[in-house]
């Protein structure tokens, strides 16, 4: 069970860390995706992870991480309305269908969402899409759909988070040590 926990959390964490570089600022209740329809996949999945850091929980993080050593975590999570991850791993291919993928993707077709990254690998069958919800110059939410032959993951971040600083979470919250370097200051 320990392995399941750790492996799964790594998946979720890696997905979050992959998209560093942008500071996301939002006030975005509407950026929250409906993902409960995917739960039925748990019946077929060899491993299922469902992470829900909802708004109420996020509001308490300032109280939970009140130690002076936690100031970076506090700043990182400040203002974030929610972090939601659903990840399903299967023993064989074809256990989930495009219907499940489309049930999430269809929510991202509105004008508010923009697809900023789309990676397709014919060889491996991997398909990764990254969407941002914008309002003016501000980003209100992030969505990631990762559809691999034996794995299906959806990540949804609602509210502001400085993804550039997410590397500071390495080694905490189940985030593995990925060897991500901190951004180097520009030379004058």
């Amino acid at each position: 069970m320990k392995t399941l926990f750790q492996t799964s959390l790594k998946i979720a964490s890696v997905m979050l860390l992959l998209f560093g570089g942008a500071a996301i600022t939002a006030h975005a209740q509407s950026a929250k995706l409906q993902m409960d329809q995917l739960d039925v996949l748990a019946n077929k999945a060899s491993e299922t992870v469902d992470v829900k850091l909802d708004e109420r929980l996020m509001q308490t993080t300032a109280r939970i991480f009140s130690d002076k050593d936690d100031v970076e975590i506090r700043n990182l999570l400040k203002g974030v309305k929610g972090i939601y991850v659903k990840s399903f791993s299967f023993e064989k291919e074809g256990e989930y269908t495009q219907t499940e993928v489309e049930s999430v993707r269809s929510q991202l077709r509105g004008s508010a969402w923009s697809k900023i990254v789309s990676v397709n690998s014919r060889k491996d069958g991997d398909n990764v899409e990254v969407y941002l919800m914008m309002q003016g110059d501000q980003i209100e939410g992030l969505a990631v759909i990762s559809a691999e032959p034996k794995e299906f993951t959806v990540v949804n971040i609602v509210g502001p988070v400085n993804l550039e600083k997410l590397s500071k979470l390495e080694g905490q919250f189940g985030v593995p040590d990925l060897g991500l370097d901190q951004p180097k200051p520009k030379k004058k």
Partner: protein
Amino acid sequence: MKRKLAIAGLIIATIVCLPVAGSRARGDDFDAVVKAIEQFYHVKHQSIPLLARVGMKGAKTVARIRGGDYKRLAEAGSIRLVFFEDQEFNSRGQIARFKASMQSTLNENWSPLIATLSAKDEEQTYIYLRDAGAKFHVLVVTIERREATVVEATVAPDILAMLMKDPGEMGKALTDDATINEAETRP
């Protein structure tokens, strides 16, 4: 002779009633979760673990929790604990339905933190948090193929921060801590 019999009866009654004290019905979410497990899997809970098992779990906890000597996680006297031992937990392909029933059983004051499921291995862990003023209530449900545990504990914010930094260990650590507490409070 009658007096001796009465005393013996009283002792037996006390021993028999002890398990109930650990999971006495308070008409709250803890009991509702236990009942949901019993109804879905057709199992019955026990409240006193075997002492040998307690010792084993205690040793694991000491090894698991880093940062020095064993540290008590839950607030003293705050733990509620129920065991299901040596019974079959077979979701029969409907593990998602059980997950949904867990969610609907708990009232909206509980925030789900993480759920991990393995339909093949019949392994499930659910962790829920609830604000309790200056502290937090944590509810941990762990189900495996032949056993399950339900733990509710009150933890201080600094302990919760420590646990949340290593959520992979959170459920196990709290469950083990609860088991130790149960053992220590018994003669």
